[in-house]
């Protein structure tokens, strides 16, 4: 140090400091470290600087790391999933040639189908409900069809023996148009409402996408093992709905190859946690009702609020109590701070009765807020219900005819997940397309 000072003291000091810091950081080799140690032993200034640098470095330990907020992981993953979906969409948009080719093929297909569909189309024009009846099998499987995307995917699921457990496969009966009409007429309000919503969504798709779904339907129907495929599809759909939004987006990623999609399904099946949460079946529903009753009777609800709830109509009471219960559970879960992957359902948007995730589906309680048709019929006309059903029969809520009794129509599971105490019968929504002939 003394030698170098004679040249440039400031530079020497800088050099010494760099060496001392590198020594503290363990960046020097054995020989260099020994030199620093020897120097610190004989030079008080160097020793003091070394001590002070080390001491102030230790003071940085006071900068505590705060954990990230509970929602951070979820929102990050959802944001990435949405961005990935948007990227995929963009990638699709920059392939006009292929799309054009696809359209041409689709147009060719339509021309070919035009001849055979002439009679059907004629009947559609004369019957305002005919289009819905014609598409009924598609509309009732609208969500599963969008989820599975292709028959190859279903075949691959079967080949891998995924979703084949409890194979209660029942042969499905072929319905005539009049049988379909009768079944729709006998639908209760909720499945009918869901059916009309599916129709609205289906009609909003591009012609190509509609055609893709029709093709998928036709392929399944014409397959020799169609009943097995259909059962697999329904089980996959039920499982899919239990997945958090991020995983759903990954499962729907159209950029993935078939092999990758199957690998993703296997991966999510293998992963423990919320993905394994079963859908709300009758047993779970009963349990939820029991929890609600216990909550209602607990000290969490004061007498005044209890009286207020009791004065409400059944539906409103159930909704109000459910909201309070979810808020309470959420608060409890936050204070307990469960580890990621084991959060209460509400945090993933999957609390029974809670709002759905990013797939656009909703639980009934959201309808009042978001569904412009809430409280009205398909076009805002509730009083027309007597006209809507040609038979004039009130909704019976009977199981649909023409369907195997063991398999509920897919629309039923999307109905309200609630069986509140003394819940009044829901009003049947009317629909303009579904009107008296």
């Amino acid at each position, binding site marked *: 140090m003394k030698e170098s000072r004679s040249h440039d003291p400031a530079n020497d000091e800088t050099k010494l400091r760099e060496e001392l*810091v590198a020594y503290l950081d363990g960046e020097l080799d054995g020989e260099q470290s020994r030199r620093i140690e020897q120097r610190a032993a004989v030079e008080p200034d160097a020793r003091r600087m070394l001590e002070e640098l080390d001491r*102030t470095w230790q003071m*940085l330990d006071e900068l505590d*790391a705060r954990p990230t907020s509970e929602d951070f992981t979820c929102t*990050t993953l959802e*944001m990435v999933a949405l961005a990935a979906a948007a990227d995929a969409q963009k990638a699709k948009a920059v392939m006009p040639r292929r799309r054009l080719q696809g359209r041409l093929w689709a147009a060719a297909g339509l021309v070919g189908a035009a001849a055979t569909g002439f009679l059907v189309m004629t009947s559609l024009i004369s019957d305002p409900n005919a289009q819905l009846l014609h598409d009924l099998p598609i509309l009732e499987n609208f969500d599963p069809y969008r989820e599975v995307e292709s028959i190859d995917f279903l075949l691959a699921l079967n080949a891998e023996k995924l979703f084949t457990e409890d194979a209660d496969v029942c042969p499905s009966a072929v319905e005539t148009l009049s049988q379909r009409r009768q079944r729709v007429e006998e639908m209760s309000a909720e499945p009918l409402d869901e059916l009309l919503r599916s129709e609205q969504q289906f009609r909003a798709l591009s012609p190509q996408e509609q055609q893709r779904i029709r093709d998928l339907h036709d392929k399944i129907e014409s397959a020799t093992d169609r009943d097995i495929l259909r059962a697999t599809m329904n089980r996959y759909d039920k499982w899919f709905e239990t997945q958090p939004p991020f995983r759903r987006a990954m499962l729907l990623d159209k950029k993935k190859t078939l092999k990758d999609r199957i690998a*993703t399904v296997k991966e*999510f099946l293998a992963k423990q946690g919320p993905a394994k949460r079963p859908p709300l079946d009758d047993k779970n529903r009963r349990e939820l009702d029991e929890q609600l009753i216990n909550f209602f009777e607990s000290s969490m609800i004061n007498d005044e609020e209890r009286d207020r709830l009791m004065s409400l109509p059944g539906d409103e009471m159930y909704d109000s109590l459910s909201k309070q219960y979810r808020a309470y559970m959420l608060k409890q879960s936050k204070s307990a701070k469960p580890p*990621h992957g084991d959060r209460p359902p509400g945090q993933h948007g999957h609390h029974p009765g809670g709002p759905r995730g990013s797939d656009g589906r909703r639980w009934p309680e959201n309808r009042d807020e978001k569904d412009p048709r809430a409280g009205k019929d398909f076009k805002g006309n509730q009083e027309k219900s007597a006209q809507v059903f040609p038979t004039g029969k009130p909704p019976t809520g009977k199981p649909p005819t023409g369907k195997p009794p063991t398999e509920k129509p897919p629309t039923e599971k999307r109905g309200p997940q609630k069986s509140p105490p003394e819940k009044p019968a829901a009003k049947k929504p009317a629909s303009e397309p579904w009107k008296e002939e």
Partner: protein
Amino acid sequence: MLEVRDGSATAFEELVVRYQARLVRILEHMVGRRELAEDLAQEVFLRVYRSRQQYMPWAKFATWLFTIANNVASSALRDGSRRPEVTLDGSESGPLGSRPMDWLVQASSSEMPTRQFDKAELRDVVQMAMESLGPRQRLAVLLNKFEGMSYADIAKAMELSPQSIKSLLARARENLRQLLEPYFEDGILPRKNNKLSDSAVASNGLATDSEE
């Protein structure tokens, strides 16, 4: 990360869970605001996801992650075109209140011989000392101190040479020493800007961008 590159969603989820707190901490110190740090962390993860195909298996993931974080934070600071500001609320900032720097400037102008070596105060002083460093010095310190990264890895993350990192860290630690040692020894709170001599500021690049 290799699994993420090959399209595993679960692996990506695990990466987010594993690195989110560390990333947010680094970014919070870089930009000075928690909320902004979380937004930027999401942006970093998004970039990781989008560029997963470019990930090279021989690169350390943390190095790659913090390279992206450095770019994102630098860009955010440039867009803000101002020094990062601290907007911690009173409850988070300890006894010095929401503007610790103002409080410290005032306090240091009067003698406070009986000041206790309070832990919360110490944290605020250290925090303030960190904020006094320029962005590059601060990032190098954070990666070295909290991520335990070697000079070579910090160099990769910050796209500098290892020798530059060595110099950068030496200057940063000298700045911290000059700010914190008087507090440690005598309880003297550092003052904004003029605690260090002008020459020290010039030679150590304190709170400047010309840290090279």
